[in-house]
């Protein structure tokens, strides 16, 4: 029972309280870049969730099964980035072969995920938070992805309506998006009390 409770609180914490985008500032580039339309934002969110789950789990396994027993922590960053790059490549090949429609809808987003700092960031946070069970690492990775999807979809919804608003000329584009993100992050601070 304790484990289940721990997993649920961990999941909620990484989705709402420690949201990767709004409190840790990870994945800001796609957040600003592809939050123009809800369908694209959702596609990007799904792709990120998928790769994040895969690479979060894999890097945790590699870290605990290979690097720490062998005392090779120094090569951690190089290994992590290699794992992420290959995970993205594998996912791309797999989707192209077995789910062509899904592959077409992801389009350019898939290769771009390699340089999405949310993925590497989550892998590093798993290490930093001292996560010591595989199950917890998986749950937190899925949660991180869902948190990203939620944040980017909310932002896309707001920006679709923002198009009808008279924004001062110098604030159009990235500035108003950042200011909106700020207000959104303020709103998410309200979740801090729920656990």
């Amino acid at each position: 029972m304790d484990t289940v409770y721990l997993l649920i609180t961990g999941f909620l914490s990484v989705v709402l309280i420690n949201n990767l985008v709004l409190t840790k500032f990870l994945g800001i580039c796609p957040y600003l870049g592809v939050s123009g339309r809800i369908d694209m934002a959702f596609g990007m969110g799904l792709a990120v969730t998928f790769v994040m789950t895969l690479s979060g789990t894999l890097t945790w396994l590699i870290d605990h099964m290979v690097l720490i027993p062998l005392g090779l922590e120094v090569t951690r960053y190089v290994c992590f980035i290699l794992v992420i790059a290959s995970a993205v490549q594998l996912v791309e090949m797999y989707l192209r072969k077995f789910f062509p429609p899904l592959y077409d809808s992801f389009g350019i987003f898939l290769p771009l995920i390699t340089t999405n700092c949310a993925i590497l960031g989550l892998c590093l946070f798993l290490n930093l938070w001292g996560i010591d069970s595989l199950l917890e690492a998986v749950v937190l990775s899925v949660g991180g992805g869902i948190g990203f999807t939620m944040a980017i979809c909310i932002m896309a919804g707001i920006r679709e309506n923002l198009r009808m608003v008279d924004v001062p000329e110098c604030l159009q584009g990235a500035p108003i998006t950042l200011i909106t993100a700020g207000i959104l992050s303020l709103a998410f601070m309200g979740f801090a009390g729920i656990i």
Partner: protein
Amino acid sequence: MATDSDGQTCVYKNTLLAGLWRENPVLRLLLGMCPTLAVTAAVKPAFTMGMCVVFVLVCSNVMVSLMRNMLKPHLRILMFTLTIATFVTIADLLLKAFQPDMSAALGPYVPLIIVNCIIIARAEACASKNPILLSIVDALSMGAGFTVALCVLAGIREVLGTGKFFDIQVMPKAFVPWAALSMPVGAFLTLGFLLGLVALITKKRS
């Protein structure tokens, strides 16, 4: 010969100045947003972060420039990333050894320099096409632009958010700190308004 060297000096000068304003990575190209937002609650970590990026940028530009004739097109991004990851590891270890408190404060944002778009962008756009010297100048200029942008942002947030600058009290005792500016909200809002200001200045000038 004289004109040639004049032209050369001109190229270097242009490259050197580009990063500070015209192609400032943060304020004009919107690259490297994650560290910009994450480490700018105070000036000291922002400056440390800037120096780390300068170090990694110079080293990776030199390496990429050296191997630019051996790169295979489809493997080049992977080679860039691996080069950068190696130098980031070195920077992280140096920081841990000589500035342990800063290393703790910056946390995972030092390793995250690996996926900082500025460095890959410069490797791709400059170092993989140009000789070493020009690549170094380019790296210094871009790094300086990044550091300056970070320090401006951090300066605004630290002075208004805590009433201090570089940990020294600068605002009068009666000043009530705008605590929100030290929180994630402040990062988004300050950068948003700063980008708006830059857009305004650019428009006035042209």
